[in-house]
């Protein structure tokens, strides 16, 4: 039984995992393969911090905004969350409209942000 199993294992396609410079032959889990890759944060990319429904949109393409200006209202878990601009800048794109349902981390608004404006 064991020898059969072992023979089966020989047919398994192993991957390589490098730890401290050593290459190990091993299997990878789906969780490991699907792990989220690191991305540097761009403060001008406004993403939904919670899944919910858009109930108001103030942002318009080309509009100049200051840090703290109201961009939109996102209703989630029975709370109306104000989404304010985290930067000074010009709105490049608005991806959502009123009554849209957004999932967590969905990109909603892009702002070309101007430093020291």
């Amino acid at each position, binding site marked *: 039984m*064991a020898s059969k199993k*072992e023979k089966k294992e020989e047919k398994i396609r192993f991957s390589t995992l490098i*730890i401290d410079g050593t*290459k*190990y032959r091993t299997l990878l*889990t789906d969780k490991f393969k699907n792990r989220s890759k690191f991305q540097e944060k761009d403060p001008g990319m406004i993403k939904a911090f919670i899944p919910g429904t858009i109930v108001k949109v103030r942002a318009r393409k080309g509009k100049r905004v200051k840090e703290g200006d109201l961009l939109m209202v996102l209703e989630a878990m029975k709370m109306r969350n104000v989404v304010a601009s985290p930067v000074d800048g010009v709105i490049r794109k608005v991806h959502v409209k009123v009554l849209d349902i957004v999932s967590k981390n969905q990109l909603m608004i892009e702002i070309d942000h101007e430093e020291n404006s």
Partner: protein
Amino acid sequence: MGLKSKSSDLRRRLRYARRGGGEKAIEKQKAIGKLTARERIISLLDPKSFHEYDLFVEHAGKDFDMDKKYLPGDGVITGTGMISGHPVCIYAQDFTVAGGSLGWMHAKKITKIMDHALKLKVPLIGINDSGGARIQEGVNSLAGYGEIFFRNTLASGVIPQISVILGPCAGGAVYSPALTDFVFTVNNITKMFITGPEVIKTVLGEEISMEDLGGARVHCETSGNAHFYAESEEECFSQIKQLVSFIPWNNVKKADRFPKKTPKTRQYKIDSVMPSDPKQPYDVRLLIKSVVDDSEFLEVQDLFAQNIVVGFARINGESVGIVANQPLVLAGVLDIDSSDKAARFIRFCDSFNIPLVTLVDLPGYLPGVDQEHSGVIRHGAKILYAYSEATVPKITLITRKAYGGGYIAMCSHHLRADFVFAWPTAEIAVMGPEGAANIIFRKEIFTAEDPDKVRKQKVNEYKEKFANPYVAAAYGYIDAVIEPEETRKMLIHALDISREKDITLPRKKHGIPPF
């Protein structure tokens, strides 16, 4: 009325109450492959051992015309019985009665049998199959859940608590299983979640089936909420029986000793399992089977965090908890999930006087941004905490690699292992030869004419000097370097000699593990 007629009156009442939700509801239950609550208890317990209590309890709902309704047993069956001669307290929610919904008296029946279990010091088995809170009873059904969770917590570490999810278990109800020691699931029957697919659809617009959201597979493989996966209720019950055979009734008893049996050495041979090259994978479960009695190993959470293997076996008749790195998956590294899985298992064994046998072969902790950002520091600390705190006999065997933090974490002498053995193939070092040589000989390598050649040379130098068990043995961190064939003999002796181990930790209310 004479005794005879009173007796026949009793029998009539019993028959009436035992009908449960009636034929139609029972038919519906069966149509989806489920047994009834009563059938479940009967097939899990030893024949004729079940004794039921509180069959005549009536529900306490007053509003919404509930006072005009009769709910047999208020939707839950409670009682005591035996599993392979072990006494247990048991309850099973009856989905055929008001959807197994939890009202105040339903909860009272459960908490009463829980109190019994804790008082009598016998394991508690809860079979969950319920639509959730009985909305008509409002805040009283919430109170009922709270009373159950509180008792689950009090009983934790005193008596083994087993949850069997044979139907829906949604909303607040999920926290009772979450507080218990082992959660059993069955494919297509188990459904467990805080918020169901409908709420997720209306709030988030995401569509997902119940099975994909909280089925057996999901909880055994992905979330780690469950410990055992079965294809049918029958298979699930035989898993429970097997588990019960390995664990004691309570935290002052030891698990039953079984007749000694030798491993099936024809099928499981150490030398045919183990590759000598530390970079080559092998299935550590075969190694476990080659040293334990009858090669019988009950793996716990076999589908979750497969880079570590935990489970129960017997060595010379004595029940032991085995924790082993699995080089077959992710090279056997420790990471968030595997540390969490092992720590929980170690704490169970420690609470219930089950000695720990640790098999070490790992390159260290898993590197990665997602691991760091998800808290591998605090989660990785769980296994250190669990091993350090454990006072049961702790026996460790290092078969190949024991590098860096992984070496310390896997029940080293520094965490008070009683015995640490190593095979001649063991490598106890601060990191693998490649990494170490790159750091120590950085200058020589980078200034060399042929860096690759020098690197190779230095790696080999390091390997020869440090990639062995003898440096650690020279400091006394390894008690004995043993031949692989001696493994079982050494484990038996170490377990025998540790039987009366008795140490106490500093007095405290409780520790503060990195939850």
